[in-house]
């Protein structure tokens, strides 16, 4: 085990993947300089400018070139500095990358990875703070993964690069500097499987991304009150681990879904609806959802802190179910 920051875990995974497979290369704004948030530090020196490509500020071309390069046999890993900027590349993500296999009747495939720095708590205001995973989890043809710890950041990214499909990797910018244990050996992660981060029999809390440490904090508080929580980190949002969630709910009979994204029409609605459809008889209370309040993410810290979900709000949601 080594202590690494989340950002270093990302660059570790990129370096490992590039070492293992000569087809892997990274491209994006400022990536050769280590990236705006340090996720590609050291790669230029190790792999050179052909495989660590700084791009102009051209999100549509970054993703479009990645689609083309992947069709022609490469494994591009594109960086979108803030997930909000992916709006500039939506056609290439949604209509091209996600559709090429299907529209070609299975003849073509586009194994590209898009890493997107995601979420708030940066005092970066409404265009640099959003969690937009629901947009992509909505689209068949693309996979969506996330992580809330350095070890998971490395594991999901390696799995995403190895996958033969387009994969969107949501990275939690607010966790980038935080350090945690990362195993010495490259871990194996199977896309589509959730990770039970904490075990308890009274409530199931389903979460992902930057909310993982906050939900674990909430579970600690609840534990002290005698309420045991299963904390399920979905890790993959498409295809998500329905069985892991349903098995847990069958045991705990209560469920809360927690995400940083706007609560309204967030991916939590899909999880809640699935639980209601398929585990209705097990439920002792309606499924609860905790997410960002229904406003753009504000700049000033007291307002941002108020709008984004907190451990306290998760605790409150669970207490309200009792």
């Amino acid at each position, binding site marked *: 085990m080594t202590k690494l920051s989340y950002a270093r875990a990302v660059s570790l995974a990129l370096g490992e993947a590039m070492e293992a497979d000569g087809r892997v290369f990274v491209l994006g704004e400022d990536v050769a300089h280590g990236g705006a948030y340090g996720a590609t530090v050291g790669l230029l020196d190790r792999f050179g400018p052909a495989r660590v490509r700084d791009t*102009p500020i051209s999100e*549509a071309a970054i993703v479009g070139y990645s689609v083309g*390069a992947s069709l022609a046999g490469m494994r591009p890993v594109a960086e979108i500095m803030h997930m909000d900027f992916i709006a500039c590349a939506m056609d290439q993500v949604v*209509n091209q990358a996600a559709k090429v296999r299907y529209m*070609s*009747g299975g003849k073509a495939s586009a194994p590209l990875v898009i890493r997107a720095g995601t979420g708030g708590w940066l005092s970066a205001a409404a265009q640099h703070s959003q969690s937009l995973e629901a947009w992509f989890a909505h689209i068949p043809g693309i996979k969506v993964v996330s992580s809330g710890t350095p070890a998971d950041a490395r594991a999901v990214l390696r799995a995403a690069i190895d996958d033969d499909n387009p994969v969107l990797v949501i990275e939690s910018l607010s966790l980038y500097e935080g350090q945690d244990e990362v195993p010495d050996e490259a871990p194996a992660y199977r896309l589509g499987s959730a990770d039970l981060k904490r075990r308890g029999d009274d409530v199931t809390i389903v979460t992902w991304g930057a909310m993982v440490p906050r939900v674990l904090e909430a579970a600690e508080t609840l534990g002290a009150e005698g309420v045991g929580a299963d904390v399920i980190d979905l890790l993959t949002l498409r295809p998500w681990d329905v069985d892991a969630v349903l098995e847990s709910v069958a045991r705990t009979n209560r469920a809360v879904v927690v995400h940083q994204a706007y609560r309204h029409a967030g991916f939590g609605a899909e999880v809640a609806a699935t639980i209601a459809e398929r585990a209705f008889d097990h439920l002792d209370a309606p499924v609860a959802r905790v997410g960002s309040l229904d406003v753009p993410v504000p700049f000033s810290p007291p307002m941002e802190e108020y709008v984004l979900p907190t451990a306290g709000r998760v605790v409150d949601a669970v207490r309200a179910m009792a």
Partner: protein
Amino acid sequence: MPASPDELLRMYRTMVLIRLAEERLVQLFAAGKMPGFIHSYIGEEATAVGVCGALRPDDYITSTHRGHGHIIAKGGDLGLFFAELYGKATGYCRGKGGSMHVTDMDLGILGANGIVGAGIPIAAGAALACRMQGLDRVAVSFLGDGATDIGVFHEALNMASLWEVPAVFVCENNGYADFMSRATHQKIERVSDRAASYAMPGVTVDGNDVEAVRDAATEAVARARSGGGPTLLECVTYRWRGHYEGDPQPYRTSDEVEEWKRRDPLGVAEGRLRAAGALDDAGSESIREEAATAIERAVAEAEAAPMPSPEDALQDVYVELDEVGWS
């Protein structure tokens, strides 16, 4: 350099094949045999054939919503092509793509595209891959004049120039972006003027002259292949039919269309072949018969082929993930 009579004859044959295939498609569509909608390539044959005449079989292309000519010129299989347009299980894309999405990875056809301009960065990305792999393949992106108004055109050309990728951006300036004439959608005189912004060569040729197109494409392809970077090649041509089949075309006069029909790209090539003594009435007739026979065979096969079963819709979403439609 003029084409040899043999080469010109070969290109003429392909142009006739595209023309007759398109005329047959128009008929079949009007008779209600095809689902969806189609965008006819009639009138623009010299561009696809001249450009593909400069390519090797292993070079890449991306095509457009008006892409039938590109597919046939790159060597596409007529049987798979017609079957796809009929929505049959035996089609190029097993009925999942249709007219706007024909893909043939074996021929380097990375897909036609229903989104205007979307193939431009995709071709450039494929070109980048070729260079990174140490291969001397090139990639051509076919695009219309309307596509040069969309943002990704500019992003892609800027990056292509910066990275000197082996790509050729072939603008088929057919005079119209959907219903809008060029004068109403862009103020520049030549589309190729836009190349100046990206410090790449911008060339304009008569897109109805297959030899001129082939010459300009050969030069651009050679430059790309030898590491000299990309080119924007504008081929000035004309869309004989509406934006889509059934388009009432209130935006132009029949005089304008007739004027362009007098500059029929097939007529230009045929005139030269006859003048060179390489084609006579009998030869012309036999080329048309040969094309018509191939087309009728493809149509008959397509009509006889099975439709996909409804559940086939659940396949081909992901690589190695059979269980889809799970939600």
